[in-house]
């Protein structure tokens, strides 16, 4: 049986690039701003390090810590919302980002979930990731992004 007391999604996209380029796109602030609606991440990128996702105006959107990091293969973040009280109160989610070379592309898997049925936080993330992923894909493959502003 599936664990009924959990909310999870697993998104997969294939991007024609190298694992190193994709890893740098996922972790460098300047690159992230281009496909993540002006947001960027702050972290020392080592196990146990603090991690923050920051709005263009400097407010902290989400925060947590690096659980596991193995460049350019695997990154696990303990991730909590910091700007909406009803989402913040749900506590921490877990986001696993995996990169796997396949032919001339990299398979990028985002598995994001938490041990809570009907999580609003996971619902919000599940709507956001497809936009971010298609922007990331078109930025790496064509040098341009598809959706400039958050709908």
């Amino acid at each position, binding site marked *: *049986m*599936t*664990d009924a007391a*959990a909310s*999870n*999604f*697993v*998104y*997969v*996209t*294939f991007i024609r690039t190298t694992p190193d380029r994709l890893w740098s796109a996922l972790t460098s602030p300047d690159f992230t701003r281009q496909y993540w609606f002006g947001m960027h991440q702050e972290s020392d990128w080592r196990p146990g390090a603090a991690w923050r996702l920051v709005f263009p105006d400097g407010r902290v959107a989400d925060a947590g810590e690096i659980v596991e990091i193995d460049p350019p293969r695997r990154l696990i973040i303990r991730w909590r919302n910091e700007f909406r009280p009803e989402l913040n109160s749900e506590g921490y989610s877990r986001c696993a980002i995996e990169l796997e070379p396949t032919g001339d592309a990299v398979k990028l*898997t985002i*598995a994001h979930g938490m041990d809570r049925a009907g999580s609003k936080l996971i619902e919000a993330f599940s709507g956001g*990731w*497809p*936009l971010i*992923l*298609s922007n990331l*894909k078109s930025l790496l493959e064509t040098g341009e992004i*598809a*959706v400039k502003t958050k709908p």
Partner: protein
Amino acid sequence: MDEDAVFRALADASRRRLLDWLHDKNGQTLGELCRGLDMTRQGVAKHLAILEAANLVSSRRHGREKLHFINPVPIHEISQRWIGKFERRHLSALAELKKTLEGENHD
């Protein structure tokens, strides 16, 4: 990603029903999908393989079980490629009108 594979995978009512069911309840095993859809194990396995090949379904190992998840990313990419470049605003106005006229908007 191969757009043809996505369109072919979506061109089947049973596979669309399988995606709808995963959308309602994400992360199901093959057994759960069979029960929920009232389809044979062989039938569900065959459709799942086509959906996985089109990257519309992703899967994760969870202990001894294989859980299946809906992956909307290819549909999102197609919508940006085929709908985004047209006038999205007008299309959503039409969709609203259709919803209102067909009475789906009364909740």
